[in-house]
């Protein structure tokens, strides 16, 4: 077993690291996730020779990534949570009292291959960095890691309403940021 786990790190460590980095967007957290996965692999006896080690390790890693995201979200200051309860008011920032857009979403001049463009992805990436950490984490969980809402609620111990409010605010913020920076760029 001893040899196996060190070998696994050599054979699959970089793959697992990329998998984690793609979902956590933080090199240190991604390293932690790989380490936690390896340590969990030592303890676990559930590896069956008929699934590949990589598939098995990736399964463990997925849970470790969610653990880290949950920790990250829970570490946010309490004031943020209180702010979340008052979310109805902050959602009004985008609309007037009768529910009309204060600033209508603009047509973004997007070429067909916009997703191939480094500039577009780098603007989006910097917009994600600007989101409040808690919103960024739940957005990553949902839209990047593709955890469904029901499991997000379970993992974070929040209500379905809280989850959708947070996702809504994250998406509203991202879209606005993208609009401002894409047009300016």
């Amino acid at each position, binding site marked *: *077993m*001893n040899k196996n*786990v*060190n070998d696994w*790190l*050599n054979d699959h*460590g*970089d793959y697992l*690291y*990329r*998998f984690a*980095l*793609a*979902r956590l967007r933080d090199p240190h957290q991604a*390293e932690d996730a*790989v*380490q936690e996965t*390896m*340590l969990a692999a*030592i303890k676990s006896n559930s590896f069956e020779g008929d699934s590949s080690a990589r598939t098995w390790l990736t399964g463990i890693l997925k849970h470790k990534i969610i653990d880290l995201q949950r920790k990250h979200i829970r570490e946010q200051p309490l004031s943020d949570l209180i702010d979340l309860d008052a979310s109805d008011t902050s*959602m*009004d920032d*985008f*609309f007037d009292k*009768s*529910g*009309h*857009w204060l600033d*209508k*979403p*603009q*047509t*973004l001049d*997007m070429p067909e291959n*916009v*997703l191939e463009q480094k500039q*577009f*992805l780098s603007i*989006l*990436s910097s917009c*994600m960095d600007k989101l409040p950490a808690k919103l960024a984490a739940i957005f990553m969980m*949902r*839209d*990047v890691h593709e955890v*469904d*809402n029901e499991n997000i609620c379970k993992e974070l111990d929040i209500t379905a309403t809280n989850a*959708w409010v947070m*996702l*809504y605010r994250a*998406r*509203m913020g*991202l*879209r606005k940021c*993208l*609009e401002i920076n894409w047009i300016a760029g």
Partner: protein
Amino acid sequence: MKLMLTCKQASQIISQSLDNPLSRSDRIKLKFHLFICNACTRFNQQLHLIKTAVQRMKLETENDTTIQLTVEAKARINQAIDSKQH
């Protein structure tokens, strides 16, 4: 049941549609709203674009073999593995 959504309501339903299938009534109301509202139609397209784009970014990171654990990180993790096993 009101057929007309405000833009605020429409934007909320659009966000929800990225997470769960909409109810029949929400689907109809949204379709109707998008038919008459350019701003929300753009909003809808842009939210979908953002979702596609972040998925693309994920795949690019996953497939970029130049991204590797640093030698230091590997050493640290190997050490953690060894200390757990002795």
